[in-house]
């Protein structure tokens, strides 16, 4: 069955929006070109989830104008907790679709570090953005939703760290959603040049309980030779959003890309996280935690593709599902011909808290080379009554014992988020969801 896509926007709307945002002319054409392809492209087909009745294309309004922040004091309290208010460090805040706050130290600016909203980036760093924007990572014509992101992009951030620059403090981004009409077509580009090292952490936060729009998010990360990048994300978008989130990495020689993803949306979500290990000796460590509640349907595909020699891919995913929610974990370790000496490991653990919750772990290894190692482990189960007995035998109540087990189950990923405020927020979100 095909659902006809009726788009409220025309090519002219897309061009006008681009001009209004003062984008470079190449970006206007790029959008128009993507728009032209939209109709023809098929929807993605996430394994084990039928999405043909999901609505990814209707939304009330393409972009809204929201207030900018002159100081962090203007943020809602729970957003303020994400940063060190005294010393905001490297920080970009987007308020719905509006770039609303930016902070980057003079020191980092002097070293050539770029942190800016995506619209400005197309203008001020056109050549750089053009080099990475949907060229070598995510392609426009992968399917309808990538083309949709390309045509309708209405937010995002550009992070560029030059050669040999090592940044200790994380670079943070906050995408704050507080308007029911809003859709998020965000595009994030993170570029690490050779020998650089840093952590980027983004938060998607809704302060309204409902959403009527779409969340279609594309992130592309490029690690230069011998660089080390950690990409952290905590997504907490409200119910009503249908979310498509695609986070993609491409690694250079001897580089390491770590993903730490807390995927805590309240709505239906299709999440895809793929790393191409292109450079020899490069590695990816992909960690994901998920909680499903209510009638949520969610599908999470994590894939590592080894192209270079001696590459190392590690996938670790933990999910807790309750109520009548469904979560699918697709884990794919792929080693292509020629990727001699590579390793593909994956582990999926899913905990079901309610009789009607459904969890499905689907591990796949695709190996086209002989001299490699690979492995997978997957478990789907319920809270172990013997573990509960052990904890309760020390006086801990049933509720508290369950809480400890669930937090413990998610801790190996949560603990990897380096910013205390972000870790705390994620812990609180988990608390709210599993209660």
């Amino acid at each position, binding site marked *: 069955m095909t659902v006809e896509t009726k788009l409220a926007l025309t090519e002219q709307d897309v061009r006008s929006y681009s001009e209004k945002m003062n984008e470079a002319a190449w970006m206007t054409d790029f959008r128009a070109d993507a728009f032209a392809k939209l109709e023809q492209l098929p929807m993605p087909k996430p394994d084990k989830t039928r999405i043909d009745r999901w609505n990814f294309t209707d939304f009330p309004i393409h972009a809204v104008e929201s207030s900018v922040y002159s100081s962090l004091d203007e943020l809602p309290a729970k957003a303020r907790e994400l940063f060190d208010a005294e010393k905001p460090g490297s920080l970009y805040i987007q308020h719905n679709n509006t770039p609303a706050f930016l902070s980057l130290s003079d020191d980092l600016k002097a070293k050539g570090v770029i942190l800016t909203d995506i619209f400005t980036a197309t203008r001020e760093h056109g050549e750089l953005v053009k080099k990475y924007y949907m060229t070598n990572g995510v392609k426009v014509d992968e399917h309808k939703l990538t083309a949709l992101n390309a045509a309708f992009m209405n937010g995002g951030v550009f992070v560029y760290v030059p050669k040999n620059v090592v940044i200790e403090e994380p670079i943070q981004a906050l995408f704050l959603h507080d308007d029911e009409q809003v859709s998020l077509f965000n595009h994030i580009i993170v570029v690490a040049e050779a020998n650089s090292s840093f952590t980027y952490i983004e938060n998607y936060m809704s302060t309204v309980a409902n959403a009527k729009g779409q969340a279609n998010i594309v992130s592309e990360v490029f690690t230069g030779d011998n660089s080390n990048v950690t990409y952290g994300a905590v997504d907490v978008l409200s119910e009503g959003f249908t979310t498509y989130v695609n986070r993609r990495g491409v690694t250079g020689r001897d580089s390491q890309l770590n993903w730490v993803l807390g995927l805590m949306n309240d709505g239906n979500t299709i999440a895809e996280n793929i790393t191409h290990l292109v450079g020899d000796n490069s590695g990816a460590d992909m960690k994901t935690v998920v909680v499903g509640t209510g009638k949520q349907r969610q599908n999470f595909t994590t894939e590592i593709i080894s192209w270079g020699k001696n590459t190392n891919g590690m996938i670790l995913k933990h999910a807790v599902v309750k109520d009548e929610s469904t979560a699918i974990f697709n884990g794919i370790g792929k080693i292509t011909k020629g990727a001699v000496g590579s390793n593909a490991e994956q582990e999926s653990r899913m905990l079901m808290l309610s009789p009607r919750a459904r969890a499905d772990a689907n591990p796949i290894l695709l190996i086209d080379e002989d001299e490699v190692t690979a492995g997978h482990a997957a478990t789907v189960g319920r809270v172990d009554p013997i573990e509960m*007995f052990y904890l309760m035998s*020390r006086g801990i109540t049933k509720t508290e014992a369950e809480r400890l087990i669930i937090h413990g189950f998610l801790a190996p990923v949560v603990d990897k988020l380096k910013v205390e405020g972000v870790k705390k927020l994620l812990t609180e979100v988990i608390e709210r969801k599993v209660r």
Partner: protein
Amino acid sequence: MSTLEIKGLHVEIEGKEILKGVDLTINTNEIHAIMGPNGTGKSTLAQAIMGHPRYEVTAGTITLDGEDVLEMEVDERARAGIFLAMQYPSEVNGVTNADFLRSSINAKREEGDEIPLMSFIRELDAKMETLEMDEDMATRYLNEGFSGGEKKRNEILQLMMLKPKFAVLDEIDSGLDIDALKVVAKGVNELRGEDFGCLIITHYQRLLDYITPDKVHVMIQGKVVQSGGAELALKLEEQGYDWLHEELGIEAETVEQEA
């Protein structure tokens, strides 16, 4: 003085009767040992006292100072002052040993009266030193990847931190070398006193060389068949159980039981 009293206790696991009428009274300031051949129901008694979900009490009573223990949930039994050092403690991923201990201690205290972090750490450090445990055991995940000996020490650490009225030690000596055994005994002996009663379940006399029991009971085929003083344990060590079988006219067979 507190009293843990077990009367006419019958316990089944998956429809099979393991305990067939156990009577036992333990007061604080007393250490009791239960000995007996494998598979005669010693561990079943321990699990039934704590309330293990797989063990079903079909008859009899357990009371703590007159309060009906069998009516209590597992956590209520613990807060009432019962502790079980388990033979096979669970491994709990993501929960550190220290966090678990603090939650356990605070579970007994009123909200707002939680143990101050500094006093907790001081006490934990002291007890871990007594038990000759590595410092990193506090921050490691609960029992995860612990060796057999480390798990046993960790059970005794919990015992020392929680200071229950009554502790049941279920084969705490199994798999321990003599040095570890001495350390575990040191921990238990430190608790000995007016506010503490203990039931030690063991195959071997060995542990009782280091923790002298006030009373020794022999369990065979789901019943306590003989009770005596510390000398009874020595006699069993020297002569085995055959003489008892003969004396009591019991056929030497054990009840099939999987822990």
